[in-house]
């Protein structure tokens, strides 16, 4: 199949970027989207041009490294997929595809489609953990957690930290990412003790990093490759209010 690509090229954070046209005429519909990008890069290199820099690693949808806007949608048109799991069979022969980086004030572009998502790490550093040192914790089965609670905590914990939620949100809010971790840890007894402190610190760090506020459009949930629910945001708001009210 033939594909017309319009890809965002930008040398570094300070440079002005632009969309550049590329034509590919031998795309196999079994290829993954990133394999199509590999094919393009191979051609660019052999022509003496700089390849398109893009983030990718595991190529099976779990590491959260890849992320790009494909025709204006984070990770492309198919729900529940990361860009690395998207296949060319989803596109028509002759299609024009726009490929751009995840855009947000808190995610500066490093080059082309690569962005700096270290703000996410700093949100976790603010409190996205349980204070438990390595050593001799209590026997695991002395702490009973019902099947339902464990499954619900897992649903929140499944976030891969790709940033699609931020790139999708019109306010560039990191509420879905932050709330997923807050909910995971607040739902289970091990994390409950620090829940109040955690939510206050993580929310405040989220704001400091330059992410916008959540205005409940729920677009993040639609585009999340892991299907993280916006109910996590509701939970975060509830935890936040509770923590503020009970603060001494």
């Amino acid at each position, binding site marked *: 199949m033939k594909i017309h690509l319009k890809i965002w090229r930008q040398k570094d954070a300070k440079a002005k970027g632009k969309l550049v046209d590329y034509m590919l005429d031998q795309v196999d519909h079994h290829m993954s989207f990133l*394999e199509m990008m590999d094919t393009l890069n191979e051609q660019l290199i052999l022509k003496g041009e700089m390849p398109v820099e893009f983030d990718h690693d595991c190529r099976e949808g779990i*590491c959260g*490294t890849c992320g790009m806007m494909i025709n204006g949608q984070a990770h492309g048109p198919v729900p*529940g997929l990361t860009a690395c799991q998207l296949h060319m069979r989803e596109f028509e022969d002759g299609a024009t595809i726009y490929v751009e980086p995840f855009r947000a004030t808190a995610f500066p572009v490093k080059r082309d489609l690569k962005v700096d998502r270290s703000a996410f790490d700093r949100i976790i550093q603010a409190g996205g953990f349980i204070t*438990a*040192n390595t050593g001799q914790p209590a026997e695991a089965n002395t*702490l009973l*957690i019902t099947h339902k609670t464990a499954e619900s*905590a897992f649903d929140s914990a499944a976030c891969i930290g790709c940033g699609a939620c931020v790139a999708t949100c019109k306010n560039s809010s990191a509420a879905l990412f932050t709330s997923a971790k807050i909910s995971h840890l607040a739902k289970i007894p091990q994390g409950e003790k620090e829940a109040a402190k955690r939510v206050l610190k993580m929310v405040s760090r989220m704001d400091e990093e330059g992410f916008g506020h959540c205005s409940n459009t729920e677009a993040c949930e639609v585009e999340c490759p892991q299907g993280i629910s916006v109910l996590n945001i509701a939970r975060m708001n509830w935890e936040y209010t509770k923590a503020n009210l009970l603060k001494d």
Partner: protein
Amino acid sequence: MELDAKIPAGPLETKWSQYKAQAKLVNPANRKKLPVIVVGTGLAGASAAASLAEQGYPVTSFCFQDSARRAHSVAAQGGVNAAKNYQNDGDSVYRMFYDTLKGGDFRAREANVYRLAECSLNLIDQAVAQGVPFAREYGGYLSNRSFGGVQVSRTFYARGQTGQQLLLGAYQALMRQVSLGKVTLYSRHEMLDLVVVEGKAKGIIARNLDSGIMERFAGEAVVIATGGFGKIYYLSTLAMGCNGSAIWRAHKRGALMACPSWTQIHPTSLPQSGDYQSKLTLMSESLRNDGRIWVPKLPDEQRTANDIPEQERDYYLERRYPSFGNLAPRDISSRAAKERIDAGFGVGAQRNAVYLDFSKAIKEQGKDKIKEKYGNLFSMYKKITADDAYAAPMKISPAAHFSMGGLWVDYELMTTIPGLFAIGEANFADHGANRLGANSLLQACVDGYFILPYTLANYLSGELKKEKITTDHPEFDRIEKEVIAQLAVLCEIKGTKTSDYFHKKLGKLLYDKCGLSRSAQGLTEAIEGIKVLRSEFYKDLIVPGTAGEINSELEKAGRVADYLEIAELMCHDALSREESCGAHFREEYQTTDGEALRDDENYCYVSAWEWKGKDNLPLLHPEHLKFEFIKLSVRSYS
């Protein structure tokens, strides 16, 4: 060089506790004077860095990914083993020790393997304390499932994302130490060389991948936790960035490499569909709990799977290994698949796959139950292949997966360079010639959380009074210049072929000659082929751009340059071992029914290799394995 594994004397059950009781300690006030470098932030690296920082050592931690949470431990699906015996089905530390040793075809140390099983108990407690959402029974107790090569249910899991959840636990522990200022984390930094001063590891040279700037870091010990190098086969289950460079550079500075050719080829991956393919996606082994593997009895079968009647299907694992059936260990399952595919019974468009069939399980347990157990794997399968595995069998195929081989380490996880430690998949230690499923997450965690924090102190206590080396030392200068020169060489070739071209060629060569089965003739040809490819690489490689900027192609080129050397060592390793054991299957050494023929009399050793320069053959130092507590037996799963 006489290799001393430093195994403590005494009964198997007390070796580790005796070691811990006698190991030297560093007093809390002195720990902050002993900085430690940890390279890699997967389960091994993150757990080690967090644990050491908790103890009070200033830790500097590195990963090439843009976040520590993305290391490839994240992709492990099925689970983590522990001898908790929660299912009351006869499990014990001893049973787990024996299963692991037998699974590895008796090519690992008894003492190491016993310690792994012993520490498994504590790991589950640790992970639960960190908030890892393991699967639970309705009453709230932890749930288990079974994995290949064992007859008990000892695998703990978090749906099909156990690696992700364990890694996030370790990552969060690491982030906590970063926020406390105890760990300085450098993401997007790749270790490009090891600095050895007066025979001891004292630092690393790392390249900032976002700026291209070369940086120096000094420490009183260096811990390598950079995972496996199975990506050397190009098509593998590994992430694109997984590489062997850190361990290879350490090897060239004097650390021995052990059994580098022992690579696990995983039986249940998705088959290759075209030349453009960049990786093979793994389908968790846990699927073999309920899936049945078969091929048609007729070669070149044209009917679809569902149209082939029961009596015309060959459930070859159940046929050949009745007591373990579809849960035969990985090396055996992969080889059996290859045997059927090579004999012309393969299925799928390229005839390179076998069926993994859930119809019986769905009939017996219902679709909902199967969905609950494996839902994410079935949906992953659908995303990639567009096929519905609830309606027709999956098509699966073997793929390069795990490196049992790696840097040789002693019982303390120290390499042959004092002060250089290797943990997790980067070392050769516990898995012998074949790793059992759900033991990799375990080994990575146990090395990082429970072993290194003790053994490192034993070493560091001796460094306390020594003069501290800083990055101004002339060795840092010299080695940094060497690294810069190496990158310049790659950038200046300006040939006509990309790194991927060479990587794909190398991978194919290696998979054919040093993969699931090996022969003296094939390996000799491979060594020559690799040399030719390497010389072509240095004449005709093209790397766009410069070393002073973001340059993914330069990163790849450096890794492929190392692969071209590692591959040759792998072939020498496989060639020198004239027996079959575990994943190492030499065609010349097999029984009449095609099973591996081990030679305990002549090859009951770990092959540790010394680098003798690029124009010389590597030198073999055998570490003879002594079995004091168990009797070597023929590994039978039939």
